[in-house]
């Protein structure tokens, strides 16, 4: 299992370290990020940037969002001591940040509540979103129902059949679900279709991106709304163990749960930040979703970042048993954290993730999402390496109810 966290080698370019907060005013994290979008979207991105700056300066916005997070989403989420798992792994004390306990079953609700409140502040009435497994789509449909906004969710045709139950959930919540039949019919094509919708409807519509990706200001905006995970974790660990954790581990697709829990620790050099990319059938097979380990810098969906691409710069289709990690890119701030060496990214393949999922279920009574299971698999190796005096936090980003069908097939349970 230690091999699961062999870090992806990355150059450390000290000269490229920028001064001041990230991103810069044009949305850059070093050489990553930016805005690579059609001119038609610039006005909307500027409007969103301005609306967000105004909201941040308005105590009323923080109070409204904080109120919803506490009384609707169920925050703060618990920090659970995983005693049996710790004993089984035989290394560091393992603590779990329980985003699986948030409303709708994952951390996704943190971001959509923030963005949907912004939508209302901008005077827009319609929200569009992309979704892979359906978690972000369900969260967006939920927030739109709560706030009385029209909701359209784009989902790759492949995913609508693989995740039929989540399609029904979104429709129950009043959202329209559009099956995208173009390109590879997966998450990346759902994003393309959402962007096409947005160009044509931007006067009335907000595009609620579900991860720390896309053109500026989205990577910053989504990070800031997910930052609550790390803020709570930091305070909870300090209170529980009287010091900072030695490592924080999270799974990374686009990377919003990881960015959310990493960010408040970036200034704590003693805290190792470890991201687990999805290795699919294994890096060597080429069938994976590990943008940092198996990709190269390029431009996709409005940002410069690491992505899976061929020699001509055509995006390659990713593969993972976890639909939520099945994306050929990664948020630009992760690309930056990798390049500067502040965070370390390893690869966990389907098998290691599924083994971790079953182990956590049996030892802790927690059925985690397959996405989160990647973080657990990586954390086991980290915990062993660091030893019993250390503390490792795993971001349990979502619950696994949606994955029972996949797990039943994988383990031949029915």
């Amino acid at each position: 299992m230690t091999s699961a966290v062999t870090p992806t080698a990355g150059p450390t370019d000290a000269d490229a370290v920028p001064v001041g907060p990230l991103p810069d005013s044009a949305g850059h994290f070093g050489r990553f990020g930016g805005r690579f979008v059609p001119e038609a979207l610039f006005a909307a991105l500027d409007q969103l940037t301005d609306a967000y700056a105004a909201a941040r300066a308005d105590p009323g916005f923080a109070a409204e969002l904080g109120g919803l997070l506490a009384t609707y989403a169920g925050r703060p989420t618990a920090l659970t001591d995983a005693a049996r798992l710790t004993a089984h792994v035989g290394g560091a004390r393992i603590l779990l940040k329980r985003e699986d306990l948030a409303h709708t079953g994952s951390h996704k609700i943190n971001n959509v509540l923030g963005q949907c409140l912004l939508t209302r502040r901008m005077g827009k009435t319609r929200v569009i979103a992309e979704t892979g497994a359906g978690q972000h789509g369900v969260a967006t449909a939920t927030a739109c129902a709560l706030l009385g906004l029209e909701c359209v969710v784009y989902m790759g045709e492949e995913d609508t059949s693989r995740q039929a139950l989540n399609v029904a959930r979104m429709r129950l919540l009043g959202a329209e679900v559009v099956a995208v039949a173009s390109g590879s019919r997966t998450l990346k094509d759902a994003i393309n279709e959402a962007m096409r919708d947005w160009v044509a409807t931007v006067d009335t519509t907000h595009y609620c991106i579900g991860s720390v990706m896309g053109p500026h200001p989205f990577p910053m905006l989504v990070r800031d709304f997910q930052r609550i995970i790390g803020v709570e974790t930091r305070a909870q660990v300090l209170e529980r163990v009287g010091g900072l954790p030695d490592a924080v581990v999270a799974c990374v697709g686009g990377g919003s749960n990881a960015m959310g829990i990493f960010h408040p620790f970036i200034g704590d050099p003693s805290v190792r930040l470890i991201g687990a990319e999805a290795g699919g059938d294994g890096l060597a097979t080429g069938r994976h979703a590990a943008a940092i380990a198996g990709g190269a810098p390029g431009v996709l969906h409005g940002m410069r970042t690491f992505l899976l691409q061929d020699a001509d710069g055509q995006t390659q289709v990713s593969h993972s048993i976890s639909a939520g990690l099945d994306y050929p890119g990664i948020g630009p701030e992760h690309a930056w954290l990798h390049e500067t060496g502040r965070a370390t990214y390893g690869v966990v393949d389907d098998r290691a993730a599924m083994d971790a999922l079953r182990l956590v279920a049996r030892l802790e009574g927690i059925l985690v999402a397959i996405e989160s299971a990647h973080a657990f698999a990586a954390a086991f190796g980290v915990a062993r390496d660091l030893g019993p005096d250390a503390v490792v936090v795993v971001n349990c980003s979502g619950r696994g109810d949606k994955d029972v069908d996949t797990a039943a097939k994988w383990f031949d349970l029915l």
Partner: protein
Amino acid sequence: MRSLSDERSLAGEPDERNEPGERNEPGGQSRLSQAFARARADGRAVLVGYLPAGFPSVAGAVTAMRALVEAGVDVVEVGLPYSDPTMDGPVIQAASDAALRRGVTTADVLRTVEAVAATGVPALVMTYWNPVERYGAAAFARDLAAAGGAGAITPDLPPEEAGPWLAATADTGLDPVFLVAPSSTDARLARVAAVSRGFIYAASLMGVTGARERVGAQAAELARRVRAVTDTPVAVGLGVSTPEQTAEVAGFADGVIVGSALVRALLDAERAGADPEEAAVALRGVVAGLAAGVRRSGPSVPRG
């Protein structure tokens, strides 16, 4: 199929509008600028025709692009098929996807440019940014110039991110063409105008490529606003597909860009089982109407 040197010998007589193989010379008037100047002298708008390279095949696309030239297109826009074309509607997506499935490469696109440029009409690449970045901006500019290309339209590369591309094209004579949209502020129009050469691509409406029943009402206003900040010609695209629409746009812009209507003709030809020559006949018919359109209504807004 991939060798276009044989094709070139089939090109026939070069178009008198330009000498074959003529290159943009740094410092001189670019081939795009010349095309716009000539059309203006004729009292008409430039007709820009778009087709993706590699559809229905690399050679078939060259045949189709030559048909555009023969039927009166002034500038050929050679599309570089891309896996994630967020600015394109279903028609261009369908042809681009098919071209990629059939294995078209960036090198094929450059060979296509070379074959089109050999007709004497300016050949302009339309490409999303990542394929250029992957190729290397400097290498792409060098090879595009060597192929006789006139420049490139880069719809997802805003001026803010265009530094490497502007540097790469600076000494090649290639024209970097940037876009404006109805939502562009005056400050952004000025920013785009400051870096765009050859012409400025004005998106007629807020949306993706594809035929529309009517030209966006915002198009004329956008062309007027662009002209207020620059002398660079403005060409209008998105949703322009009929002779009536080209005539209408020619009344307020220096150029008219047509894409989906031409791609639709190729898709229909393939669906009907037509061979490339039959498809070319169909295309020539479509272009003849559009070319008449740009001549029917001379620019009614005189240039200062």
